[in-house]
């Protein structure tokens, strides 16, 4: 038994209420901050538990929203703080020599495709592409054939524009923002018969759609995360490229 319990923590079996803040402490006084950061590195979570939690997150975001765009925005906002923290956590867990923050766009996207994806979903993202449209050099695409967040979700017909992977897009946006590459990330379904081009009017989809006809049958849930960096990021990238 620990003899230095936080105030009010000793009165309940599974943990009591601390004062009137409403914060609950575990009865042994050990909070999440007492745990080493590397301990959960290889731990796995129940997919079903996540699916139920995520279903509730979507229903929660759906309350009092007027449109699909607003719903996606809310899901995006739910993911954003996770991405910010995840960047620091994953870099902390790298071996000391490679604890470098990604310094250019390609390194950042590789970090997301490999490290972030492996940590979150247990595998790498399927593809990484740059927009082939010369008008939008600031757009990059991370492609996932079947996003884990959408594993059990069927979007009703009247909301076909919606892709709940907007949550994962929010995480990516958080990582990009945290790394100093401010960006807007959106999720688009391209597996449907409608194709991706209609979903993102900005023309970012046009590059992605080339030779993608086979995707519809095999991967109906294929999702493209469209990463659109702010102009200053590309400006800086060009300056660094010119110097070296």
């Amino acid at each position, binding site marked *: 038994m620990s003899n230095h319990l936080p105030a009010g923590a000793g009165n309940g079996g599974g943990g009591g209420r601390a004062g009137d803040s409403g914060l609950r402490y575990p009865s042994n006084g050990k909070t999440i901050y007492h745990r080493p950061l590397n301990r959960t590195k290889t731990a796995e979570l129940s997919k079903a538990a996540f699916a*139920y939690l995520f279903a509730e997150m979507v229903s929660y975001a759906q309350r009092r929203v007027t449109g699909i765009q607003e719903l996606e925005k809310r899901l995006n906002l739910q993911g954003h703080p996770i991405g910010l923290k995840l960047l620091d956590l994953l870099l902390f867990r790298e071996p000391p020599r490679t604890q470098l923050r990604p310094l250019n766009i390609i390194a950042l996207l590789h970090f997301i495709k490999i490290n972030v994806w492996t940590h979150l979903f247990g595998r790498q993202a399927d593809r990484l592409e740059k927009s082939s449209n010369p008008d939008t050099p600031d757009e990059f695409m991370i492609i996932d054939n079947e996003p884990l967040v959408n594993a059990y979700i069927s979007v009703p017909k009247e909301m076909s524009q919606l892709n709940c992977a907007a949550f994962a897009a929010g995480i990516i946006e958080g990582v990009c923002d945290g790394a100093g590459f401010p960006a807007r990330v959106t999720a688009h379904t391209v597996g449907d018969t409608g194709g991706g081009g209609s979903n993102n009017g900005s023309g970012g989809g046009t590059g992605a759609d080339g030779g993608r006809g086979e995707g519809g049958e095999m991967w109906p849930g294929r999702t493209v995360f469209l990463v659109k960096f702010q102009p200053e990021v590309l400006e800086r990238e060009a300056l660094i490229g010119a110097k070296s």
Partner: protein
Amino acid sequence: MTVFSLVIINKAGGLIYNRTFHEGGLNKISTNDYLVLAGTFHGVHAITARLNPVKSAPERPLSNSIPGVPGGILTRPEPPSGLEVLESENFRLQCFNTLTGVKFLLFTDTTQTNVDVIIRRIYDLYSDYVMKNPFYQLEMPIRCDMFDRKLLSYIREVNNR
């Protein structure tokens, strides 16, 4: 051996899902008739469950029961099952009643084996692709693309075996 069709009935006796997998096995009836079928079956099931409402608790060795827990999980009698199988010359109807009162009715060929395994698997698919879908409202008709897709591919696999 063929699986003809699947009907899912919610706990109030309403039809929430109805799909035919094999044309020609059963005659087509209208959606309205399916609704009547669901309601009628629900009623019959409720009455058959009342015919023998309490299954006597199986005798268990004392060491197995939890002391001080009256009506603990180990001593609670099983709920009555009601109608489970209905067989005619041309088809066999198997009913699976979940703990929450949802009924899965599977119409098969009379020679179909392992129906309980198939129905269990359908229950799995239901709990994955319907219950974990944030856009599904409880007790309402099931309209989930993913569930349809997985169900069709599973039944196709069963029917081609």
